[in-house]
């Protein structure tokens, strides 16, 4: 146990201190994106992993958050960060609209509704001129003050994202131990049994979806802050949803650390495949992602977390 604590402390110091030593902008940028991906995937994990309600259109919340931030700037001249709450509110509304009808039904319906909803939003936004239509929205070209949170270096974003990730991990860890977490896992284990024990199934799933949607929208808002640009594809595109699913499932859906492990593997992998195949334009990235998803679902539905557990059980047996 002591050794494990030490490991965590060392890891924590590394995560916090490395930007002070390594000054490459590219690696700092990738690191910020990695933390952001971990936030989105952890948020997805609350409803998709713990609750077993598989959203394949979670970009609808990400996009809502990103658009909230930049629409506040474009349409009202607010600092983008002030628009983030608007995006979160929009995401919560969408969550209720999609979740309330489908959570009464079998899990497939929710999954189907999520892709329908995200496509619907993507097409809608491509045609609404106050939200930039297919061109998208830009953030302030030059910061008007500190409130615009516009920095040249990725490092401030990196720390900001880390703080949000830490908050999300605390919320998730609390949820894991509380009634909500038990109820979610019970629902994933079988709704019939859960209901017979008095679990309010629809309400529990909806609460989880709303927490998840809120944090995903926050991630979208943070993304918009850093990148300063959003269009229907980078907000509501398929790749955004796919990445959340794949990162969580790869690391281990329904575990606290799974999405972090998944992000630590996938984001560097993405950067190298992009370098190898020349951007995501060729479709190679998606083929790789699709293949990873199929392989996980076929051979290792618990992701790396399951693998680690299997190996440690084996090691213990050998030791005994």
């Amino acid at each position, binding site marked *: 146990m002591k050794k494990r604590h030490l490991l965590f402390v060392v890891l924590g110091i590394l995560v916090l201190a490395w930007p002070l030593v390594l000054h490459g902008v590219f690696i700092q940028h990738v690191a910020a994106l990695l933390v952001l991906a971990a936030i989105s995937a952890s948020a997805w994990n609350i409803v998709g992993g713990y609750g077993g309600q598989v959203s394949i259109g979670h970009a609808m919340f990400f996009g809502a958050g990103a658009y909230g931030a930049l629409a506040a700037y474009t349409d009202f001249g607010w600092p983008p960060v002030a628009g983030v709450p608007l995006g979160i509110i929009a995401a919560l509304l969408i969550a209720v609209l999609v979740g309330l009808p489908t959570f009464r039904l079998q899990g497939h319906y929710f999954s189907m509704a999520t892709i329908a909803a995200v496509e619907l939003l993507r097409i809608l936004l491509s045609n609404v001129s106050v939200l930039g239509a297919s061109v998208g929205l830009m953030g302030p070209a030059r910061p008007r003050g500190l409130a615009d949170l516009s920095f040249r270096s990725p490092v401030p974003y990196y720390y900001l994202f880390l703080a949000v990730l830490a908050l999300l991990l605390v919320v998730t860890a609390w949820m894991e131990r509380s009634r909500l977490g038990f109820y979610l896992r*019970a629902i994933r*284990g079988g709704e019939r049994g859960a209901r017979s*024990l*008095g679990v309010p199934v629809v309400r529990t799933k909806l609460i989880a979806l709303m927490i998840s949607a809120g944090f995903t929208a926050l991630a979208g808002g943070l993304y918009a802050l850093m990148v300063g640009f959003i269009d229907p594809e980078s907000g509501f595109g398929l790749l955004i949803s796919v990445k959340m699913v794949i990162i969580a499932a790869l690391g281990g859906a329904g575990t606290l650390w799974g999405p972090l492990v998944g992000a630590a593997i996938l984001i560097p992998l993405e950067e190298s495949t992009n370098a190898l195949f020349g951007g995501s334009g060729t479709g190679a990235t998606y083929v790789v992602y699709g293949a990873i998803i199929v392989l996980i679902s076929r051979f290792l539905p618990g992701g790396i977390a399951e693998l680690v557990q299997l190996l440690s059980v084996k090691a213990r047996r050998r030791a005994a």
Partner: protein
Amino acid sequence: MLLEAQGIVKLFGGFRAVDGADLSLNRGEIVGLIGPNGAGKSTFFNCLAGDLRPNAGRIVFDGHDLTLATPEAHARRGLARTWQVPVVFAEMAVRDNVMVGAFLRHPQARAARRKADEVLEFTGLAAQADAPAGSLGTLGRKRLEIARALATEPSLLLLDEALAGLNATETQVAIDLVRGIHARGVTLIIVEHVMSVILSLAQRAVVFNQGHVIAAGAPQAVIEDEAVIEAYLGKRFRRPVP
């Protein structure tokens, strides 16, 4: 009167699986629900537990009309059940399974855990508390279902063939467990095939055939009833069921 079900009708398409069944239950009773396969006792049982909505009739439990209430509302009112084929949460630990039930009356995790540990001790599952529920055999799963249901602190527990498929020793252990549950002040309805279980446990037996209650009363008297013997064995046999 703890439970009063009147004129329950359940249709599947045109088939009247339960056709006007009545049952009333006093606090502290153990009632056995018996009948040949396809007699409608399981359907009736599911109507009582809220997993099926009756097409007609009325179910009043502890002063509340639960005729059309959801399964979770039944649990909140204090009516718990187990399943013929256990539906445990296989990926969760045994203790966590029971905690899901315990959270109904104890929203705080610490209290729920205390309740769960107490129930695990009582049902003899304490040693397996940390094992995943999926690692249990059928016997363990049935026991876990009972533990989970008990953790919701029910006043009425419905057991659906909880003792089916057990050997003689296991059956005796299970009978003792049911007696223990009864001693805690829980009223019980048990659906069983095995007549000896009904004879040794139930104070009253209710016999189903073709969707109707055809006999009710003291178990020994009921199994000697002409209509019951006929329902089970057909007209030609007139011998008491062993």
